[in-house]
């Protein structure tokens, strides 16, 4: 049953590859996404203790949380892409649709992996799949962005493999057996060889951190998110970064069990604050609103790392923020994609008055900005506040102060660009207005908005339970 979460998207990918109709293919993606979300929620909600085919495929609390989240993000993007691909009918979508479904299968595999090597294979597969998504526009700029993404991603993935090998070696020395099953590694705990474990954590942090886009390994992000279609941006910022974060958390759990928790948390705090600082610097005066969103993604990956680094109750907050961030990124990237289409530019010199030309997308872009910068009553307000109070409760004054300063600077920097886009009169160029806000291109964003509002006002009990279970797994 659990394996079907991987197999069904793979079969659907094959079907999408074979189907000759350019119009039918996107619907296959959307329907598979809907089926995947329904199945995931059913499995998680019923808490099925499924008999497994293999010990290395199992849903732990972290996997349940990640799977539900990625599945929802994928569904949102899949429904949107039906409308998007209809608009881009001049471009063949066979590869795009096939790769989307392979991506879904591989993210499911990653969430289910209880074995480091298997998890690594899933991460590498998502890297290669997303490279093809980035190249959708097939021009010189998108090729350059894809190249940079692959270079950083490939080095990251190579270092992650080396880290995996080091972890196996630490088990070989400690236990006499190079196991890479998470349960065995956690149980072995302090028996693992400490020098190897430390080095392994550093390598895996660099490797999976590059996939998350933590500074200073974020350099691929602005180019990739700037050149990719908005829907790919939403999928990367909401889906792939979540996968990398879950991978990193699983490694963190092993490091913590092996007595290297303080060392790991110190590194996470450093990278987290560095990411927020980098994002703040590059968001001030940013004139390209898609690159702006890329830096916002760097910022929030930083917040996630910081939350885990502070530890204790902040771990729960960081997991909550993972959910909130992924959902708001859906609103932001999809509305930015619509605005980009309608104005044929993503620079604020050319784009003004988005709220007049695109009343719904323009408003959603503004609301998304308010939500992601932590304005109430949206979800991120709660999670960002919880991280702050956790830092204060732990008497980490410097961290709390820097965190607040960065958030304030980013609010101002991001705000000035976003307001320039949505306010004022649209330019009088006449021909940019062919774009219409069809239901398929707007509804997915409202679905995200509803969820983000819900997470801010009232978090349903099953979700809280899931978050607490995942946080307990990480030692909170």
């Amino acid at each position: 049953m659990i394996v079907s979460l991987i197999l069904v998207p793979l079969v659907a990918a094959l079907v999408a590859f074979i189907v000759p109709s350019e119009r039918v293919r996107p619907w296959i993606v959307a329907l598979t996404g809907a089926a995947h979300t329904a199945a995931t929620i059913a499995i998680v909600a019923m808490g099925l203790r499924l008999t497994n085919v293999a010990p290395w495929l199992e849903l732990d609390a972290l996997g349940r949380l990640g799977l539900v989240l990625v599945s929802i993000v994928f569904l949102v993007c899949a429904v949107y892409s039906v409308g998007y691909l209809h608009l881009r009918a001049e471009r063949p979508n066979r590869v795009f649709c096939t790769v989307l479904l392979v991506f879904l299968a591989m993210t499911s595999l990653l969430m289910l992996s209880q074995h480091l090597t298997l998890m690594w294979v899933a991460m590498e597969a998502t890297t290669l799949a997303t490279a093809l998504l980035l190249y959708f526009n097939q021009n010189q700029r998108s090729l350059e962005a894809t190249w940079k993404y692959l270079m950083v991603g490939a080095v990251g993935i190579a270092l992650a493999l080396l880290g995996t090998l080091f972890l196996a070696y630490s088990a070989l020395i400690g236990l006499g057996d190079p196991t890479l099953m998470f349960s065995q590694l956690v149980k072995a705990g302090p028996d693992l060889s400490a020098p190897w474990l430390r080095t392994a954590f550093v390598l895996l942090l660099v490797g999976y951190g590059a996939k998350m886009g933590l500074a200073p390994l974020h350099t691929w992000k602005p180019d990739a998110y700037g050149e990719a279609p908005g829907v790919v941006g939403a999928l990367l910022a909401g889906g792939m970064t979540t996968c990398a974060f879950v991978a990193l958390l699983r490694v963190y759990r092993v490091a913590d069990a092996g007595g290297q928790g303080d060392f790991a948390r110190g590194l996470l705090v450093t990278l987290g604050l560095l990411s927020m600082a980098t994002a703040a610097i590059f968001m001030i005066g940013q004139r390209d609103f898609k690159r702006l969103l890329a830096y916002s993604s760097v910022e929030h990956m930083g917040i996630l790392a910081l939350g885990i680094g502070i530890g204790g109750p902040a771990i729960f907050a960081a997991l909550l923020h993972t959910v909130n961030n992924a959902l708001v990124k859906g609103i932001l990237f999809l509305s930015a994609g619509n605005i980009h289409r309608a104005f044929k530019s993503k620079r604020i010199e050319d784009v003004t008055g988005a709220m007049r030309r695109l009343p719904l997308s323009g408003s959603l872009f503004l609301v998304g900005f308010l939500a992601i910068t932590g304005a109430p009553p949206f979800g991120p307000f709660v999670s960002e506040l919880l991280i702050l109070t956790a830092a204060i409760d732990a008497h980490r004054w410097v961290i709390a102060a820097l965190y607040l300063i960065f958030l304030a600077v980013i609010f101002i920097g991001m705000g000035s660009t976003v307001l320039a886009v949505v306010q004022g009169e649209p330019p009088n160029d006449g021909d940019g207005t062919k774009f219409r806000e069809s239901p398929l291109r707007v509804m997915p964003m409202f679905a995200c908005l509803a969820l983000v509002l819900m997470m801010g006002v009232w978090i349903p009990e099953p979700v809280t339970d899931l978050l607490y279970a995942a946080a307990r797994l990480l030692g909170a």
Partner: protein
Amino acid sequence: MPPIADSILIILLLTNFFILGTASLRAAIRVIALQGILLALLPLFVETHLTFRLVAIVAMTAGIKGLAIPSFLFKAIRDVHIHHEIEPYLGYIPSLFLCAVGTAGALLFADQLPLAIDHRSSLFVPAALATLLAGFLVLTTRRKAISQVAGYLMLENGIYVFGLLLYQSMLVEVGVLLDLVVGIFVMGIVLNHIQREFSSLDTEKLSSLRE
């Protein structure tokens, strides 16, 4: 580990210097192929019994790292007419010096790490780390995409050498998946070339005329 394995690893370390010191892409790729063959020989000294898995690993490594990828790279060189590395970000002498420092550092660092009894007094760990560092050096200091791919291959070779220490788990085979990335890189280089050559036939421009 028998001394022959260590001799192979020393040759591997020397080839790292050669790749860093040459401006000719052809020569660099030939040495990359040599590295692939050296790596294919190494498992023979790790596993003493002749098993199907051993034969498969040796054949696969020689086939992919020694033959397929180098010939793919040679083809790319012919297609894009680039034969020399021009003005690397860091000169040849400084990069050779850095490689020497890196190799010495790898030897010292590996000395600090606790090793399993079988692995003490062998060069596997320092050779792996030094090759990895040399690859990283090529990757970051060279301008041409093909040189960068060569650097990535060296980085990968370093990981492969380390993977042999964990021969009993399936990790050696997993490393081959990284070669997939290399294939995509080379495709990217050729695509980039095609795009520059036919920039007036940019499909983006074709669609903007139609809308």
